[in-house]
């Protein structure tokens, strides 16, 4: 896994953008998340927004891309495009698979699903990230997280 050099990675006023290409190897998720979290920390992201929302939300997207998108084929890659600013970070995760229908995922918090070992990944992404859009045939997801939790909209 080639990670962009952080030596010149001092935060700029305009923000930054970069991309990672990961082979479909689940062992790479943790170091990739560690690297991304470090970049976000440079831009003032902290607390549970970073340690829970970002880490778990993006981990789930990477795991889904590697397992369900690319079928764990190490020859297939996952591309991660990051636009990082002081107010928000956008992460686009794209795999080489055939995609899926995100609308068909059952609610894992229903009593009948609570003891299922799987099915919580998409749910967690939606719960933890501020914006989630699936693109194309479902093999590309765009996640957005604001540095500070957005205020609830007035009704």
């Amino acid at each position, binding site marked *: 896994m080639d990670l962009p050099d952080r030596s010149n990675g001092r935060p700029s006023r305009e923000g930054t953008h970069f991309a990672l290409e990961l082979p479909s190897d*689940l*062992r790479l*998720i*943790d170091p990739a998340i560690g690297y991304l979290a470090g970049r976000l920390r440079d831009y003032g992201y902290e607390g*549970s927004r970073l*340690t*829970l929302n970002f*880490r*778990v939300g993006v*981990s*789930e997207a990477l*795991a889904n891309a590697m*397992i369900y998108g690319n079928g764990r084929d190490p020859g297939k890659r996952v591309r991660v495009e990051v636009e990082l600013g002081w107010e928000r970070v956008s992460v686009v995760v794209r795999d080489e698979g055939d995609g899926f229908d995100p609308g068909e995922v059952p609610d*894992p*918090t229903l009593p009948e699903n*609570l*003891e*299922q*070992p*799987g*099915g*919580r*990944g998409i*749910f*967690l992404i939606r*719960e*933890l990230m501020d914006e989630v859009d699936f693109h194309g045939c479902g093999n590309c997801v765009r996640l957005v997280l604001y540095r500070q939790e957005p205020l609830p909209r007035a009704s």
Partner: protein
Amino acid sequence: MSFRTSKQNGVVVVDVDGQLIVGNRQELKQKVLDELEGGERKFLIDFTNTGYIDSSGLGVLVSLSKKIREQGGELRLANLNEDLRTLFELTKLDTLFNIADSRDAALSAF
């Protein structure tokens, strides 16, 4: 990332150091299942030194809890930090597990 097992007051205690995620969940599962097969029935997983858990990690806990219960045993969890508690609450898994604030509280509840 590693899992350390020890035995305290007849309870198998597993410490999760680092993350419990898709890349290492099988290791935890195998360790607990080996102990279960060896006759152990009381299990405590301590998350004092755990950074984060992903959906696969949650899945392995659900699956282990079920297997242990089927054998007449019990799995308890202890020392979840604020992030981990939020994760269990979001997924409603806080209703499925016995979660203690400390290792001692969990051990004394068996």
